[in-house]
């Protein structure tokens, strides 16, 4: 089997992309609300990076990004780190287990599923799992919105991080 060797990601590029996702997150929260729902660019970045690189570095990055997001934007500190780490691990695990190729559509599906999981985790952390049933339509909008934004950002992220 011939394995296509991918360019390893450069640390400055990754950190720049992460910084950009934080800026986009700020912009998104203010100006990109769809039916009051703001997208989560940091989550999109984490899912993209976990899908492509995975491993220990992706886990550490997820933990750090989650912690920073909680501190800078919202939420109980630690909850996003928990969700991001778990999502990052699950993505890497599923990708390897199911031997998913690095195509565009699998990644869109992963962003969708990751976003869905993220809201479920958040509802559990905020001790409000009982409202999940009521919020299914909104969770779906959030997940679809993230997936759509990912399709717009995909090539930029790929070029920027992996060259």
């Amino acid at each position, binding site marked *: 089997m011939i394995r296509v060797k991918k360019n390893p990601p450069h640390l400055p590029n990754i950190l720049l992309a992460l910084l950009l996702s934080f800026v986009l997150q700020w912009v998104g929260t203010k100006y990109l609300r769809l039916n009051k729902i703001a997208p989560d660019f940091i989550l999109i970045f984490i899912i993209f990076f976990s899908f492509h690189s995975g491993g220990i570095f992706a886990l550490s990055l997820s933990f750090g990004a989650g912690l920073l997001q909680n501190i800078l934007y*919202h939420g109980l500190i630690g909850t996003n780190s928990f969700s991001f*780490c778990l999502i990052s691990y699950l993505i890497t695990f599923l990708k390897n287990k199911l031997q998913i190729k690095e195509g565009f559509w699998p990644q869109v599906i992963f962003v969708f599923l990751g976003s869905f999981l993220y809201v479920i985790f958040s509802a559990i952390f905020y001790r409000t799992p009982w409202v999940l049933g009521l919020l299914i339509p909104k969770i779906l909008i959030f997940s679809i919105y993230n997936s759509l934004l990912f399709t717009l950002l995909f090539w930029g992220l790929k070029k920027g991080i992996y060259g």
Partner: protein
Amino acid sequence: MLWRYRKEILLSFFLLLASFIGIKSSNCKILWVKENETSRPQKEFFSHKGIELEKIFINELLSENRRLYEILELKEKSSCSFRKVARVIRMESVGWPTGILLDSGREQSIKKGMTVLDQNGSLVGRVAKVNERTSLVMTLLHPGSKVSGLIQRTREVGILSGGHPGILELNYLPKESEARRGDIMLTSGLSTLYPKGLPIGRVLKVREANSSFFLKITVNPAVSFSKLEEVLIIQ
């Protein structure tokens, strides 16, 4: 060997760390929520997500606050020597509950036979069984429940019994009784089981049975069993 599972080990470490940080930060925030109705991080989280969790979350906190406040007021008014607030942790979700499990038991000095009230001071039932940390309440609707009741307006005494879906039946009230729909029922205090004057419910229907010397009176309990979340235990 361990190196093979490095990702899992790191994930476990991160999850533990995140949980620890979360618990540490939530402890003070939850206290803050109770004092100020809603906390800034939670408020920001919900508004950020644009999900109307915020409203639901605040309403839930407000409603809990209101209930606990009512119970606290009732607790202060009550002249009983023992007063303890407990949470309902299990109840039949379908139909009318005949038994309710509370989160307080022997460790919290709960004893068998103690009286259980809702946040409005209406009679719920009495403690039937006590475990270490839980206790089981036999509600008024239980088939074995018998309460000596008094009609507030006419001062007539009868026996209220459970075993009927959602209602109580008042027995042994003579046909000459002036009881009528809407009359308030209280505990009579004639037995040692319940203190006198606790609201039980309102008369729903008064019927005359041909073959009996007594009236058949249906009473609607004052307690809304389906909404029961916290109770006051007294002795």
